[in-house]
């Protein structure tokens, strides 16, 4: 039995109760209703005050203006990286740095299936050393107007036999939200497929600082 049918029966039962109250037996007096209503509304008010001002269990979604700022900043960062301007990578977004010793000219990047979206940006260094520096940056991530960075796991970077392994886990975001807009009446409920502000905002970047004498071979990147 579908849940909608169950609800329908519940409405019927509710209405039957009403009819019972109204027509035959006055077991429910107005005074009791008043007390019941007062208690119920007080519970609602207390729940509202507790959740909004005391508990911290409800996080406020970022404003559209803030999301717009983030989007512009990320677009700027993307275009800077395309032009190999790495000054846009800020220290505050750096999550970790690892250094590896290369032993051969060709360095292959090996990704697991979930790692195909992590873009690599390479800056070529004038250096006689064989050291490859790998830095992982992550700007604040928003999807559907929700801050999702806490859900995102950092990738594991490993080095073995002159191969750079990028191992990532799938990111699953499950959130609950409260709206006082109405999807049914088409009031303010964001049409999220169309609005760029509700798309993925933010970037994860793997920056490789590689001496010029090496080659990086990355076959699987999908970005």
């Amino acid at each position, binding site marked *: 039995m579908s849940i909608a049918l169950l609800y329908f029966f519940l409405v019927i039962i509710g209405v039957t109760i009403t009819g019972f109250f109204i027509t035959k037996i006055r077991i429910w007096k107005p005074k009791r209703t008043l007390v019941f209503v007062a208690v119920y*509304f007080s519970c609602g008010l207390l729940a509202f005050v507790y959740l909004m001002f005391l508990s911290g269990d409800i996080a406020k979604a970022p404003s559209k203006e803030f999301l717009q700022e983030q989007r512009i900043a990320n677009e700027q960062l993307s275009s800077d990286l395309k032009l190999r301007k790495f000054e846009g990578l800020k220290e505050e977004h750096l999550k970790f740095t690892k250094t590896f010793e290369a032993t051969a000219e060709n360095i292959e990047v090996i990704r697991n299936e979930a790692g195909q979206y992590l873009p690599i940006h390479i800056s070529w260094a004038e250096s006689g050393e064989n050291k490859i520096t790998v830095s992982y940056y992550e700007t604040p991530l928003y999807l559907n107007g929700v801050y999702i960075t806490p859900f995102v796991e950092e990738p594991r970077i490993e080095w073995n036999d002159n191969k750079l392994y990028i191992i990532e886990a799938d990111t699953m975001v499950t959130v609950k939200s409260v709206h006082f807009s109405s999807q049914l009446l088409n009031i303010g409920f964001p049409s999220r497929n169309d609005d760029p502000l509700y798309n993925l905002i933010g970037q994860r970047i793997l920056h490789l600082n590689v001496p010029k004498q090496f080659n990086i071979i990355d076959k699987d990147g999908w970005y």
Partner: protein
Amino acid sequence: MTSIVKVSTARNIYEQVKWKCKAYSSMFSTVLILYILLTLLSGGGSGSLGMGRSFVSYREQYYTLDSLFIFTVLTMFIFGWLLASKSISRDNFSIVTTSYTEAISSALFLVVLCIFTLVAAISTLWISILVDILRTGDLFIFHSMEYSLLTFISFTVCSLLAASIGYFIHVVFDFSKIVFALLCVGMFLLIRQYTIELWGILFGGSAFQIIGRSTIYIILLWLLIVLMRQRREVTRT
């Protein structure tokens, strides 16, 4: 109708609304019982959405007034019918009553009931969120209240429209069984033809159109109710 005590029409209407609030108090408690039952079964959530973007699989369960709204509309329709059907046995005729004051007081009582359901729905929403948080410990995201006023007004107006339709149908039933039968057939055909386009034609697309058109329909329905009640009064005399 005559009375040896001269009282204003406004005073009569006020007394009648007050009387109806007491006489039909079970309607208020039924709304709450219904909301509690629905919330317990649905977990309070109105819907969910899922999407995949790049490396992220995203799922959001959202809480809105929408699910309560659907049942409120249905309940208000039935309450409107019940209010009209019980008016003779439950109304207080010791207060000076004309068809005009009866219709106005019934409409005002339904306004009170609809505002009550709105407050009850908001209370239910917050209580269900609190229960969910206490049960699961999940973090909630609160989106802005930018559109809340518009949502609340639409909720109330649409509930009132449903109640008015319920009341109107019973008044038609009292008025003429043939007209009632024709109305039922008409409504059946309308529902059979139901499409999103028809909804758009009747109520418009935006919130303001929904509120505006619903208000017009409510006024028209109550004007018709007053007209038909006049006839009933003549018949009874």
